């Protein structure tokens, strides 16, 4: 027969509720249950075994229970974590500008975006570990220069930033989109069904033209990874 201690351990871990000494005794053949004392001693030896581990054996009103140590809650709770709100457009644009124009100061980001960039956005991106301060520009105010981190590359599954399509290429796609728009306006019929974009052979940038009633917005190529 296996050691009493291990039967108690297995039962406590298999049960969904605390087990009393009587309940633990009932796991054995009716003719030869272990004594209350023996069960108690097994419980105490288990408590000693668990000292310093991820779980602990405690006694509560209705019996004994093995439970996760509360100190581990910060990690274990993440099993049930919820998603936060999606990033705002401002956050994404800030991140994209830092990736493409690094090293870059907040002032320079604001200049390109045409609107101010809140400290909260910078902080969110820093907390996520995607951007960091690389140094400071030696001008009045010594503004911080931001760049992306290795964690940023890892998240997007990139080995180097060089794997992102260069700006010029993104612009070329837009330019083609504009030309198509121009063609559209020359033709009376406003809808061009399934206008196929020439796809740059060098990159796996597949283009998707949706030329419905939004003439001022160029079509949006989707880059697949």
């Amino acid at each position, binding site marked *: 027969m296996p050691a009493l201690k291990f039967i108690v351990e*297995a039962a406590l871990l298999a049960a969904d509720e605390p087990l009393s000494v009587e309940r633990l005794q009932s796991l054995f053949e009716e003719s030869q249950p272990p004594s209350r004392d023996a069960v108690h001693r097994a419980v105490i030896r288990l408590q000693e075994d668990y000292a310093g581990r991820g779980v602990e054996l405690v006694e509560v009103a209705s019996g004994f229970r093995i439970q996760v140590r509360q100190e581990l809650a910060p990690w274990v709770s993440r099993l049930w974590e919820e998603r936060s709100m999606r990033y705002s457009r401002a956050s994404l644009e800030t991140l994209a500008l830092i990736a*493409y124009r690094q090293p870059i100061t907040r002032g320079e980001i604001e200049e390109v975006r045409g609107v101010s960039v809140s400290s909260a956005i910078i902080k969110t991106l820093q907390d996520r570990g995607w951007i960091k301060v690389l140094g400071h520009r030696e001008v009045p105010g010594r503004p911080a220069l931001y760049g992306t981190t290795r964690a940023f590359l890892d998240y997007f599954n990139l080995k180097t930033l060089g794997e992102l399509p260069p700006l010029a290429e993104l612009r070329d796609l837009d330019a083609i989109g504009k030309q198509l728009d121009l063609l559209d306006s020359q033709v009376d019929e406003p809808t061009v069904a399934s206008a196929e974009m020439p796809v740059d052979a060098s990159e796996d940038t597949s283009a998707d033209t949706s030329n419905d009633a939004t003439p001022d917005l160029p079509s949006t190529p989707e880059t697949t990874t």
Partner: protein
Amino acid sequence: MPLVSELSLDSAETEILARVRGEPFLQLPQDLYIPPDALEVFLETFEGPLDLLLYLIKRQNIDILNIPVADITRQYVEYLDLMQNMRLELAAEYLVMAATLAEIKSRLLLPRPTLDDGGEEIDPRAELVRRLQEYERYKQAAEDLNALPRLERDLFAGSAPLLEREVVRKPPPVSLAELLQAIREVMQRAELYTQHQVSREPLSVRERMSRILETANSEGFIPFTDLFEIDEGRLGIIVSFLAVLELIRESLLELVQSEPFALIYIRLRT
């Protein structure tokens, strides 16, 4: 009740066929009275005509590859008769199988054998043998599956509650497509995108600029040659060189050389 005795089992048969009111039912009675509920249970122990046929074959120790069709057909039909006499409703599959067996029996008696496309002779039993074997292997597989240790019967998952959960929020996912969309939109709005020249420099240069800046920030002076690593190859060296030039152009770095032909250093522009 016809021919019940024909259906009797080998005396050596010890398999429990069914249970009647909790009592094991080891054999079909030789004759006499068979409790109707017993037969019903007996029928239920078969998973269909193939299962019943397998049983009839196995109990006589016949090789499945060499079925004496006449014998087996007779036993099978007797069994069905018995069931019908008991007014038990038989599934249509049992009757279809009886017809199949009868057909095989008659084809075996034909003087001219059936030929396949290639002119080869076909044993009329071949298809039945195939089906019986096929069914038998999955019947066995089901038994093997049932014998595997499984949760809730042989294995019990261990669990320990976490009493007070903390609320954790996971940062939202961002796709690369979203990021590229963002840079395109912001660049469309920015004048430099449409009117000024957009540099065709690969992004690896901007990335290298960041790394060099970081190093300069922590170390102060860096020998110019330390920026280049031979094992990066020619392309890596060009990237580093372009990065240094761009950093100097943006007034972030400066080159320092104490005298002509001395070592060149770079440092942060102050």
